[in-house]
């Protein structure tokens, strides 16, 4: 027997479908002219500058995520577990990059990491430079993607019942053993998800990066540079290549995390 139409769901689909249509139209707008001129796309993709820029962006994003994993994972844990007053304050502070205009984030990073900056100054005297240098790109990426990683991972840790940790400790596991054998494995999905969100945010950053490090050029800077100097066609091809790479990364992520935690949810 045919199911009667659920008009509420139909209405939701109509309204929500506008957003899906918007993204689809944008993708079509870039894909159709590029696919119509494959030789041009191949020529742009083969340019050394473009390849270097793509590699540089992906590498800087990956290093930023690595830094977030090392520093953001413990932070996420204490924010999820520690109920002391400063925990709430720290959580709010961590969210600030989320609400700042990207140029403001860039200024903040510049103030800290330029050769006259609070952190950049002393490090410059030790031979580590951030202005117009790879480390500058990484710190800008880390700064803007902190809340994306910490929010996702904190949610994952908060979902691990404290009782599991208590039982592990009653069985003789130290705090470290409990964290690495129980809490962390049960949060893998959220850690992966936070890492992907943070990486996506990091490699897409333009304003914060360009303020501290115009060179070497990340892809977003290169697209802007080509748009202002060579026009839409040149920048569009690089943008289309980036879309292809991002879709591949998301698909790969889906494959890696597909079976993760499958056994945890059955009850």
């Amino acid at each position, binding site marked *: 027997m045919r199911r009667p139409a659920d008009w509420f769901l139909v209405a939701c689909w109509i309204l929500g479908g506008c957003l899906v249509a918007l993204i689809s139209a944008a993708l079509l707008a870039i894909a159709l002219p590029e696919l119509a001129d494959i030789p041009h796309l191949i020529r742009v993709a083969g340019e050394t500058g473009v390849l270097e820029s793509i590699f540089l962006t992906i590498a800087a994003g990956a290093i930023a995520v690595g830094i977030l994993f090392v520093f953001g994972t413990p932070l996420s844990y204490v924010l999820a577990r520690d109920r002391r007053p400063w925990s709430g304050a720290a959580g709010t502070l961590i969210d600030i990059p989320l609400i700042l205009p990207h140029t403001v984030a860039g200024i903040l990073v510049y103030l800290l990491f330029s050769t006259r900056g609070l952190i950049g100054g002393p490090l410059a005297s030790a031979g580590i430079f951030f202005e117009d240098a790879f480390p500058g790109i990484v710190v800008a990426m880390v700064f803007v993607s902190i809340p994306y990683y910490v929010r996702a991972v904190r949610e994952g840790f908060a979902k691990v019942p404290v009782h*599991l940790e*208590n039982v592990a400790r009653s*069985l*003789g596991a130290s705090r470290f*053993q409990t964290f690495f054998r129980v809490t962390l494995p049960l949060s893998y999905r959220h850690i992966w998800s936070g890492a992907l969100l943070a990486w996506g945010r990091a490699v897409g950053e333009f304003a914060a990066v360009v303020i501290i490090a115009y060179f070497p050029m990340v892809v977003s800077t290169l697209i802007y540079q080509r748009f202002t100097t060579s026009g839409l066609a040149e920048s569009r091809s690089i943008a289309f290549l980036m879309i292809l790479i991002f879709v591949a990364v998301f698909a790969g992520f889906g494959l890696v995390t597909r079976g993760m*935690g499958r*056994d*945890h949810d059955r009850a």
Partner: protein
Amino acid sequence: MIGLEGISLHLGRFSLRDVNLHVREGECYCLMGPSGSGKTVLLELVAGFHPPAAGTVRIRGRDASPFPPERRHVGLVYQDYSLFPHMTALANVAFGLRVSGAPAAEALRMAGDLLSSFDIGHLCNRFPGTMSGGERQRCALARALAVSPDILLLDEPFSALDPAIRTECIGIIRDLAEDRALTVLLVSHSREEAFALADRAGLLIDGHIVQEGPPPEIFSHPATLEAARYGGVENIFCGTVEENTNGSAVIQVGPVKIVSRSGSPPGRRVSCCIKAQDIMLGLKPPIDPGMNVLPGFVSRIFQCEDFSMVSVEGGVCLTVRVPGSPVFPVGTRVNAIFPPEDVLVYEGG
């Protein structure tokens, strides 16, 4: 074996106040009390997860405060069993052995043996999410016992089980405690579990232990009004003592007078508690003139499996438990009869 001396603890709005509790070696002690009274917190305090604001926790006679949970040798089983969902049953049971430094092969062999002794050896490679409630409970018990604890802390371990499995699991724990001479601190809401397992019970109400003793005594002679309420005394009335002659108090409750054996002086506000099972119903007044007799009519009947709860209206509304099916239908004029000795009187109300 376990000694709590003057324990106070504050967690947000909740607090434990001056808790003193001693569990002897090999004893099974049941901690009872309404939800939110602090039973689980007290259990976690013994396990070392909450440092007390005041007082001392002693385990095996020694002050346990310097010892973190992993060094207290205490087995803990929660209501939801808290099996590690990303590990198989075998890995769950082997966990404690592995973190204690046992070689992997040895730990797995011992874990397998332990699972077999609980009749769930065939579930070694199953994840907790695919096991039934009874299987998970056995697995959690096996895991707790794998590290040979001196003390077993059980937080409502039977509440998620259906009645048939629950009876079986109560038997398993009783046998285990006897065979291994375990000291067991059990949290439970159920008087059946307390009667079946506990040597002694303590009633924790609002963060304070109000009564201790053998389970039958706690339910038959509640020490406070709160204990009577928790024990499920069905008839609780507020009244004023009219007169007291040689320990026989006449209490005015609304339009009726109830006689009790109480030393409360005249004019004192009191609460009278009468268990439904202590009241009889009859068409005629009893021969014994010393009995309380409240005439009324049957207003409502709840038929249960092997007894009935009958409401009798007569100035006050009494609930009476009668065995089997009710003899008197709704509307029948009856006398509710109960001896003064069965009227428990508490100050205030």
